[in-house]
């Protein structure tokens, strides 16, 4: 019975000291005095071994309960200290401590946005070679060796790179080279969005020798101009805003028939006409219905399938967003960190 009393006394002693403690440190001392490795509870348990077995169980249980009671009293008391601390004054206007700050490149953000919009229409992302054969970039797209249409693309050629079957090695001047690559790899239906680096021998405020294009290609049975229009409209309203309109106009490319130029209504003047646009419209880029010859070159029967394609510059599309009138497109690739850290 003596042991039982000791336990009760110890419990009362502990609870008293806990309540009297004024600081976290004092409380910690109490904790270690009673619950520590060589604390008073531990001392008590040493006595257990001398007890008869039936008492051993009941006393053991009692010790355990005491331990739990002390623990919970300590936890209660600790809360008071925390609460006290919260009530004291702090300067809430002082700057916060931020986690490290980083930035994604504008073009990366645009690519992520573009691909997620097309993902919702079930387009699959692809990526094809930047160093490409003439066949995929020109010849296979219905532009024979001396075709004047080739002049539209100021092409970089690679020294000492030529293949008997595919012609000269070049830096691809457009993502349209991915059309034939995609057709070689997959059978219709095809819904591709190919976003990749392209290169042209041009450098001025609106042309960078390296730039990105995104190329859409849809091939299935009965794909029509109406499907192209719907897709363009879906993209434009998601990317630029629901108030923006699209239109297609006749144009000419060797690899589409018919071919179109795609316009988006100007975001600055809402289509009324201003100095940034042409009578209320901004040119987004080219598109068209895939030329039957190109389908054939890609191993697809144009009697069964039809398709549409479009290919636009990522940077140009990006800069048509409000607030991004960057005066020189090459700023995107000069890597001035003062520029990159703005976004």
């Amino acid at each position, binding site marked *: 019975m003596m042991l039982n009393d000791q336990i009760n006394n110890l419990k009362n002693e502990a609870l008293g000291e806990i309540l009297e403690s004024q600081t976290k440190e004092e409380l910690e001392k109490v904790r270690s005095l009673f619950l520590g490795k060589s604390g008073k509870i531990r001392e008590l348990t040493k006595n257990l071994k001398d007890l008869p077995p039936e008492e051993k169980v009941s006393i053991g249980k009692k010790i355990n309960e005491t331990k739990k009671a002390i623990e919970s009293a300590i936890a209660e008391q600790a809360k008071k200290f925390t609460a006290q601390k919260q009530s004291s004054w702090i300067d809430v206007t002082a700057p916060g401590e931020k986690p490290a700050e980083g930035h994604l490149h504008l073009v990366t953000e645009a690519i992520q946005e573009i691909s997620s919009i097309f993902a919702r229409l079930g387009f*699959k992302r692809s*990526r094809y070679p930047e160093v490409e054969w003439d066949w995929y970039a020109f010849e296979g797209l219905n532009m024979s060796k001396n075709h004047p249409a080739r002049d539209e693309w100021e092409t970089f050629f690679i020294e000492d790179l030529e293949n008997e079957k595919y012609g000269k090695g070049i830096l691809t001047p457009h993502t349209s080279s991915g059309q034939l690559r995609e057709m070689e790899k997959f059978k219709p239906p095809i819904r591709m969005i190919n976003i990749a680096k392209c290169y042209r021998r041009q450098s001025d405020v609106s042309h960078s020798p390296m730039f990105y294009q995104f190329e859409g290609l849809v091939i299935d049975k009965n794909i029509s101009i109406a*499907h192209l*229009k*719907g897709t363009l409209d879906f993209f434009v309203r998601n990317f630029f805003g629901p108030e923006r309109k699209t239109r297609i106009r006749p144009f000419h490319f060797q690899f589409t*028939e018919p071919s179109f130029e795609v316009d988006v209504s100007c975001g600055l003047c809402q289509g009324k006409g201003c100095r940034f646009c042409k009578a209320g419209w901004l040119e987004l880029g080219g598109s068209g219905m895939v030329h039957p010859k190109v389908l054939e070159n890609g191993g697809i029967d144009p009697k069964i399938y039809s398709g549409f394609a479009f290919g636009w510059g990522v940077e140009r599309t990006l800069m048509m967003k409000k607030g991004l009138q960057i005066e020189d497109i090459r700023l995107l690739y000069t890597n001035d*960190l003062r520029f990159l850290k703005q976004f």
Partner: protein
Amino acid sequence: MNILISDSWLRDFLETKANPQQIAEYLSLCSQSVEKITKENQDFVYEIEITSNRPDCFSVQGIARELACILPRFGIPAKFKEPPVKETPPVKNGLPLEVKISNYDLCPRFTAIVYDNITVKPSPSWVQKRLIQSGIRALNNVVDISNYLMIELGQPMHTFDYDKILKHKMILREAKEGEEIITLDGQKRKLKEGIIIIEDGEGRIIDLCGIMGGKNSETDENTKRVLLFVQTYNPTKIRKACQALSFRTEAANRFEKGLDPEGVIPAIKRANLLFEEWCEGKVASQLFDIYPHPQKPKNVSVSQKHIEKIMGIKFPLEEAAKILESLGFKTTIETKKESLCAQIPHFRYDDVNIPEDLIEEIARIYGYHNLPNFLPPLAPLDFQSESNFEYESKIKTALKYWGFTETASYSLVSENLISDKNASLKLANPLTEDLLYLRKSLIPSLLKIAQENPQEEKINIFEIANVYLPKGKTSLPDERMKLGILSSEKNFFQLKGVLELLLYELGIKNYQFSPSQKQQYLVKEATITLNSQEVGYLGEINHSAFPWLTLQKPLFVLEVDLLTLISFANKEKKYLPLPKYPPIIEDFCFVFPPQTFVGPVLEEIQKISPLIASVKIIDSYANTKTFRLVFQSREKNLEEKELSPIREKILTHLKNKFKITLKTNQ
């Protein structure tokens, strides 16, 4: 290619009440794009972009023809007016011209006519004004006629002084290498083989065909007799000649697109009139017309089904036929076959060849704006994983939130950013020396960016881009996507930690960093391997390896092969029930011999017992390192009798294998 034409000139060919804004808008919507309208006094000038397939539109006449069929569709009446002409009169004992054409393939149609009694003087002022509005210099009435008709009809022509063509003989042939001509602009031009030229009876070259005439036969103020020259040429030959000579003219721009041989005679008839009205000229020869292979009628058919398939709506054949007729096609509806057959007008002969070409004509005049908007059907695709793109995006986002800024640099670099130029791809026609080689590593580009941003106190940047590893002269290079990181703030271990956390995010566990000396521009280098496959390296830049690098501070970099990395990524999540029994945590303080790698030690400890749940270094000072071990069993409370043999084993293993001892308190 753009053309400038004035509103007043256009209205010579077009009867309509449409205003210039309407003309511009509807022409752009259904045909060629009007880029700009400029008001000039009482007139307007349209700048129109002409697509390369429509040389017929490269003229006032062509634009008027289009408008005559477009404007009525917008409810504005319009009618095409043929220009006034003068038939070529029969001439008795006309002036002679002997023509020899070496190969008709060079010149499908050759025509010429001589006018006598010419008075050379300035053109009427309204003519000069129109030419200037179209961007062409007015010279004198003779030269102006040829330019005026080029803009008006799209057919370039040339005028010779008939008396300067010796022996009145012309031989049209391909030039031989090294022959020379002085062109009208006074430039001496060395010719290349294959360029089409004309020599006269004395062997002098008098014309650089389709591009510019020769100085030696030009008309001047004393010219009395003019030889007017109207041809069509092989477009490829003209184009090649322009490229070979690096020389282009308005005439060449038209010839290289391929001109309509049937347009030649109407042009002569128009010229007859203008020479008479502006120069008092009289026709003084027969019309020389060499046209051995006249155009045969060409028909293209298209089915109603096909029209519907491409336009996406039901479209009556009668309506389609009506549109084509308005554009100058002759159509027949084949009711049984549900198709229509169209005969191509001569001025569209080369442009319209396949059913899709007819559909374009029908759809554009019907109006693309009148077609509905549909979304493509979501038919199932061949499966292809897009995880590379997902991971790439995830990695970029992670690095951003860990304080790195993404850069985007050119794939092309200058010679001093390439380590082995003989084994790198080089451009044959570079724009500048800065963009000459295709890079094989991202690190030099990242260093250059660090160098060019001296204002930054600390630099933490990364880029994901391809590098290009040549695979011989007949194969495309291996394009490998790399992740490159550069930091002037983080040390070796902090950068290593970034990569380790990245690997953790990708679910990659089995990786190793081992000491190496492979990159000549690194000191303190580690090679990174995944499942014993090398994926990249990490290290400190050896500044002396880059003579241009003036930055003083230490720079740490890493470069890994991204797609290999991603190939080991694992999205699988495993569930382990939460432990029911408490862990036992013990700290050990070890003394290491100098230069002992700690990685293998950690691995060794971990391997000793499955009861070791984790082992970490929590403190490190000189050769002393404190390890924290967590022992845990999933079955029961651990007791001393189970722990002590494990401790023993750890101590003996470390001692035997690494000569590591437990630090004793002294």
